[in-house]
């Protein structure tokens, strides 16, 4: 990659905070570094990953409204976690997390466990019970 080919396809994924460093060659083939504000294919696959996450969050919201899942499922998906990771953060079994993802299991949670979940997601217990 030549220095003048270092892509500047800014889609604001860096939020204007910085440019990343890329190694590229000058006319004589000598290496140096150049700042890049983004690259089209990289933007595409990054957005692809987020679209997938957002899709899951929306689907989960619908299942919660339909009474199939508890609000916990929303916060789990929103934080890009799965049952395995959440159980590690909570230091409880996957089975228990799965139980809490069901509306009935979530309703029977004591205040202490609710607080623990809220802490994992860095929100309040009030927020934990909602899907916003």
């Amino acid at each position, binding site marked *: 990659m030549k220095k003048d080919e270092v892509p500047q396809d800014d889609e604001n*994924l860096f939020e204007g905070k910085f440019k990343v460093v890329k190694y590229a060659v000058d006319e004589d*083939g000598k*290496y140096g570094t150049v700042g890049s504000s983004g690259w089209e294919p990289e933007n595409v696959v990054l957005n692809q990953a987020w679209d997938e996450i957002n899709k899951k969050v929306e689907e989960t919201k619908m299942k919660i409204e339909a009474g199939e899942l508890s609000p916990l499922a929303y916060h789990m998906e929103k934080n890009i976690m799965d049952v395995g990771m959440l159980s590690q953060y909570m230091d409880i079994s996957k089975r228990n997390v799965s139980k809490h993802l069901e509306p009935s299991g979530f309703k029977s949670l004591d205040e202490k466990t609710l607080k623990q979940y809220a802490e994992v997601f860095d929100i309040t217990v009030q927020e934990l019970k909602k899907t916003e």
Partner: protein
Amino acid sequence: MIIDFEHRQSAHCETGVISNLMRHHGLDISEPLALGIGSGLFFAHMPFIKVNGLPVTTYRIMPGDIFKKFSKRTGVEMKREKFSSPEKAMNALDACLEQGLPVGMLTSVFYLPYLPRAFRFHFNAHNIVVYGKEGDDYLVSDPILEKTEVIDRRMLIRARFAKGMPNTNGRMYYPTHVPQDVDINAAIIKGLKYTAKDMGTIPLPIFGGRAIGFLASRVANYDKKYGREEAKKYLGNIVRMQEEIGTGGAGFRFMFGAFLQEASTRLGNPILYKKSLEITKIGDLWRNFAYDCGRMVKDRADGMTYQDLADQLNDIGKKEILFFQSIHKMKL
């Protein structure tokens, strides 16, 4: 408590931290040298190991191994610690800062609030340096950023105690002895030979240059095997591993080219300079591949097939094997 620490921006976190920490201790090591001496470049495709349901493809050795190999080859002694509780981890950090020692540590990018939203996944192997403390705020040199940052104690604890792959366990490290008479040239040769051997000669299909051809054979069938929409996710993941922040672009191939040029100058070996131009061309092929994958994901492929992408990969694989075998055989 602020240590006079010079922050220099890098393409990749681990090599950047090595370079910045070493310079602080009087050993002038560029980022490409850190990559080369630490044998950072690699390739592996492991379809049976999945992260978020997608098979693992990597363009580098295991996180943390670049630093380990670098230290071994330069005689730098490192203290590495992990902790059972955040209290202990933060106390140990504070004690180091009090002694004037900048500390490298493993963090999860998900919990680093200063990073742009789009990059904050549960990637638990991001290296940063903490070089000071003001009240409850810690001063951070994050190698991929232009400028230094500040993070509060609470968030730093979260980042240092992330769960998943791997659990970060408050891991931190700092040099305890940096020799001032390091034989850099010998270290360069060791690092280079190791990479050349692994990439050029490992007979298994999942590691080294051969694994690129193996990935090609999988990619050729992605759409038939997984269907059109799923196949795009598989493809996107290959490119994310190649280009995402922290891999240094084109899966490290360009940074490796910069390393070869520095090696050529230091060793007085013009052949290594020619080799740097070769790997630059291969890096460009990786870029073209990523570009075409992007088009496929966006449904702008104009008749391009998965077989076409596989052919590109096959070509890259063959070229990389020959490239690294030629270095493997070289007398240095």
